[in-house]
C-alpha cells in the first residue's frame, strides 16, 4: 500500500482507535475507583491519547518523508480530519451521557415500563440541573464559591457562544 494511502486509512480509522482507547481508559477509571469523576474525562483522555498516537504513526508512515509546502499541506489536512472526527466521537459519547431523549429511552429499556412521574423524578429539572452542573464543575468550566457559580474556563463557553450564534444564523433562536 502506498504511504499516502496508509496515511488516509489511518485517519479514516481514527474514531475506531479512539473507541478502543476509550474502552481501556473507561475501565482504568473504574479500576482506580474514579467512578465519581465525569465519564467525559476518560473520553477526553482517550481522544487525547488517540490523537498523539495517530500523529506519531502518521509522521512515521508518510508525513516525515515529505518536504516543504507538501508537508505543511498534508499536516493541515490530517489535523482538520482528525479534529472533526475526534470532535464527532466526543459529541457522540457526550450524547449518550447527557442527552435527555437518549437517557429517557435508556431508562425505559432498562426498566421495561415507566410512568411519566417516575421519569420526571429521575430526569426532570433536578436531575437536569445536577448532571450538567457536576459535569461543568468536573471539566473546570465553572466554579462554585460561597454558593454562587462563576465561569472558570473559556473553552466550552467559546463552543456555547458559537452554538448560540449558529442557532441565530439558522433562525432557530432570536436571542
Amino acid at each position: 500500500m502506498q504511504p499516502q494511502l496508509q496515511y488516509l486509512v489511518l485517519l479514516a480509522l481514527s474514531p475506531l482507535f479512539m473507541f478502543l482507547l476509550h474502552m481501556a481508559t473507561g475501565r482504568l477509571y473504574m479500576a482506580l475507583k474514579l467512578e465519581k469523576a465525569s465519564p467525559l474525562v476518560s473520553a477526553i483522555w482517550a481522544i487525547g491519547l488517540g490523537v498523539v498516537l495517530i500523529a506519531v504513526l502518521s509522521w512515521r508512515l508518510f508525513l516525515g518523508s515529505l518536504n516543504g509546502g507538501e508537508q505543511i499541506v498534508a499536516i493541515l489536512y490530517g489535523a482538520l480530519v482528525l479534529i472533526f472526527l475526534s470532535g464527532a466521537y466526543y459529541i457522540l459519547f457526550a450524547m449518550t451521557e447527557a442527552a435527555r431523549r437518549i437517557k429517557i429511552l435508556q431508562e425505559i429499556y432498562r426498566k421495561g415500563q415507566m410512568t411519566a412521574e417516575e421519569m420526571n423524578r429521575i430526569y426532570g429539572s433536578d436531575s437536569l440541573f445536577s448532571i450538567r452542573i457536576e459535569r461543568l464543575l468536573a471539566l473546570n468550566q465553572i466554579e462554585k464559591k460561597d454558593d454562587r457559580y462563576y465561569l472558570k474556563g473559556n473553552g466550552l463557553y467559546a463552543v456555547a457562544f458559537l452554538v448560540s450564534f449558529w442557532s441565530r444564523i439558522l433562525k432557530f433562536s432570536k436571542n
Partner: protein
Amino acid sequence: MGLGIFAICMTLHVLLWRIYQPKRHLVALLSLFFLGGAVLFFALQIFFKLSFPDALAVALLHTALSCGYIQLYPASQAQSPSVTILTTVKKSMPHGMTENEIRSLLNTEMTFQDRVEDLMAAGLVQHEKKGLSLTKRGRGFILPFIYYRRMLGIPEGKG
C-alpha cells in the same frame, strides 16, 4: 476539493434553513450532506478524473467535516442546557449566579414533558397501561447506544 464540496453543502443548508425549515431536520441534513455530497463528488470525479488516493482524500475530508457538523447541529436546534448555563453564567459575571437562579432558568426553558412528547411523536415511545414503553423502532434506536456503553464498561444507569 473536499473543503469545496463541504462549503457548497453548508451554503445550501444555511440558505434552505433560512427560507424553510424541514420538519424532519436530521433526515434532511443527512440527505443534503451525504447524498448531495456524493453527487457533487461524482460530478467532480468525472470532470477531474482523480486518482484513488486523491479521491479518498476528498471523500474523507468532506465526511469528517460533515460528521463533525451534524453532531453539533442538535445543540443549535434545541438549545442545550449546558449552553444555556454557560452563556447565562458568563453574562452574570463578575457577580455569578446562585443555584436557584440557574434552576429557574432551566425550569422555564426546558420542560421534561416536551421531550417525552417529542419521543412519542417520533414513534419511539408509546403509552401502555402501566406507563410508557419502547416501540419496536425505539428499541432499534436505543440498542446501539446501550451496547456501545456496555463495551465502554460503563455500568447501566450511570451517567
